[in-house]
């Protein structure tokens, strides 16, 4: 097989895979929240209600598509895809496994190992916010515009601490490539701790996680939507599959964020203390590394759900306060200390 064919297969595979996880996530969200709230959750469509996301998809596709009369039509139509495309493409740089050898050909389990790595992810997530802002603006509704404005403010406040947290990772590993970073996280340090970013950067991880929640628009940071105040905020006026793109895009965003968290801080596909490649054949190793990665990712996806149904939401100014007064100073201190340590040890 030529390289381009392999790439094509990888692209299609990862596209389907991300979609699948996102679809399952919508189901997990409902069932897990039901579990936490002494309810049953959707259990009619298929076994355990597993076909519920499918039913939802059909419903959203067949609904009437309404564009409000005074909306800015082009921008209104542009909003949802502008949100959904970047979050879909962000997964391209995530290494979802080590490598697999098929027919004597070594295939890296990553769509594209670009040298700018997670800068690409940051850039795309910044573009995705435009989808919300434009959607809120174009709807010509006061609730939507408030949601859009909140999304903008949230982006500015939380991209910075996230960037600061990621900078320390760059300092530590000396590369932007997610694959390189994961490779450097294998093995142990100090004799017993896994060589994970989490153990080297606990504060950085915390900052990154909080910023990731804000990035994903989840409770406690779901201010742009904020159903009880802004009537679902920036997508109040959307219906049919346009709304579906927004809602679904959010879950895809979660999948990507969880994958990046795993890659940066939890050793990606590697198991701590065990080198799987020694015990498994080349094909089995590829599959096993993929499974380990997915399991770690699943944990963080569940964490998203768990937090969402546990805590209340912040107020707008408190959210800003947390970003500017707590996370950014902490991020700067963390960056400074890390830089000092790196300078001293090298």
């Amino acid at each position, binding site marked *: 097989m030529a390289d381009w064919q392999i790439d094509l297969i990888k692209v299609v595979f990862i596209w389907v895979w991300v979609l699948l996880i996102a679809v399952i996530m919508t189901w997990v969200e409902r069932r897990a*929240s039901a579990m936490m709230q002494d309810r049953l959750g959707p259990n009619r469509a298929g076994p355990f209600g597993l076909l519920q996301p499918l039913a939802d998809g059909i419903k959203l596709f067949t609904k009437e598509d309404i564009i409000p009369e005074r909306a800015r039509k082009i921008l209104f139509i542009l909003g949802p895809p502008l949100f959904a495309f970047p979050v879909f493409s962000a997964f391209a740089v995530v290494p979802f496994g080590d490598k697999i050898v098929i027919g004597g050909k070594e295939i890296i389990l990553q769509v594209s190992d670009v040298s700018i790595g997670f800068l690409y992810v940051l850039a795309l997530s910044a573009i995705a916010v435009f989808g919300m802002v434009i959607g809120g603006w174009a709807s010509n509704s006061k609730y939507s515009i408030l949601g859009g404005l909140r999304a903008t403010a949230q982006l500015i406040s939380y991209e910075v601490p996230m960037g600061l947290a990621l900078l320390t990772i760059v300092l530590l590993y000396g590369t932007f490539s997610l694959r390189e970073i994961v490779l450097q996280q294998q093995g142990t340090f100090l004799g017993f701790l896994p060589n994970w970013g989490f153990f080297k950067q606990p504060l950085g991880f915390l900052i990154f996680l909080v910023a990731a929640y804000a990035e994903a628009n989840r409770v406690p940071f779901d201010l742009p939507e904020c159903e009880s105040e802004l009537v679902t905020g920036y997508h109040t006026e959307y219906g049919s599959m346009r709304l579906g793109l927004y809602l679904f895009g959010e879950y895809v965003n979660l999948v990507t964020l969880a994958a990046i968290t795993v890659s940066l801080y939890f050793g990606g596909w590697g198991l701590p203390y065990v080198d799987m490649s020694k015990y498994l054949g080349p094909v089995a190793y590829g599959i096993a590394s993929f499974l380990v990665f997915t399991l770690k990712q699943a944990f963080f996806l569940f964490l998203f759900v768990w937090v969402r149904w546990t*805590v209340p939401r912040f107020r707008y100014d408190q959210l800003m306060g947390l970003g500017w007064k707590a996370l950014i100073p902490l991020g700067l201190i963390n960056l400074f200390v890390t830089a000092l340590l790196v300078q001293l040890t090298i």
Partner: protein
Amino acid sequence: MTKELETICITTGPTEVGEYVTLNIGPIHPAMHGTLRVITQTDGETVVSAKPEIGYLHRGVEKLGEHLTYAQFLPLTDRLNYCSAICNNVAYEMAVEKLLGIEVPPKAQLIRMIMMELARIADHQVCVGILGVDLGALTPFFYLIIQREEIYEIFEWHHGARLTNSMGAIGGVEADLPERFHEKWPRLRDTIRKANDETDKLLTHNRIWMDRTIGVNAFCGDDALDWGFSGPMLRACGVKRDLRKDEPYLMYDKVKFEVPVGKHGDVFDRYMVRMLEMEESIKIIDQAYALYKELPDDAPLMKKVPKIIKPPEGQIYHAIESPNGELGFFIRSDGTDKPYRIKIRPPCYMVYQAFEDLVKGEMISDLIACLSSLNVIAGELDR
């Protein structure tokens, strides 16, 4: 069209175009409980003015009362505060009984007390749960609402209805406590406590919850008295006034209970007062049930009243401590079988008129939190 616009302008007052945004919240809005409407002017997210507009659920209950006999009016009282309909029923029944000058048998009084306190718990559960929902914490709502369903089960056993109860009649109650109540209550008491405990764990000491509620639209006791606040709203402001203690009716003077009082009158204090009151209500029910047990099984439930009630000429005002505060019925009788005039004093009307003072200068999110914590029930407000 122009006429409509005119009325809106009158209700909102002069608008400073270009400076503030007029944001119309309600009557159809997820956070508006029932059909409330608030016309706000906002500077960014800060509320500059908030004019509540009422009347979307006005059904003319008071006027209807003039055309119905005393007994026929009873089901209409259910539709006032539909979260705790029993309290409305009993308040009305007691007002008419006072007018007639009759004393209800002790057993009926105790059953009324038990049912009213159950209704109070149910009402507070809804209020606290909804406050959580509006602040983004959905989970406690379900813990509480499951217990409310159990309480409604008792109502159903006793008088057949769950939400609009129409419990009792003028002169007493129609039925004894249901058989199943005796084994249900001890279990239910524990589960209510457990649900409250879980809610407490999830919310009270949660940093985000504290940030969202402490100091949000704080209100001082003197202002609250001036506005005519009553019930948990007033007690949250630090004024210890509870009609059950101050002007005891039924057998409230025979039971021991505390009156929880807040300090700052902010959303957190209102929440805490309601949480603590649920516990006190449980204590009251326990004591009332003990008193009930002392009575013989065949004690009368109803005082004999004529089939067609014709109170003597005169007027009466009787108020009870409903979950929301002082719920009063003023009845003027002209000696016929229909009241000449009925006036209802709903607690949340007095609270809601202070709404602008409460939320001015705060943010839209606080406005929503404030509205939930007031527990304004549209049915009671508009009547």
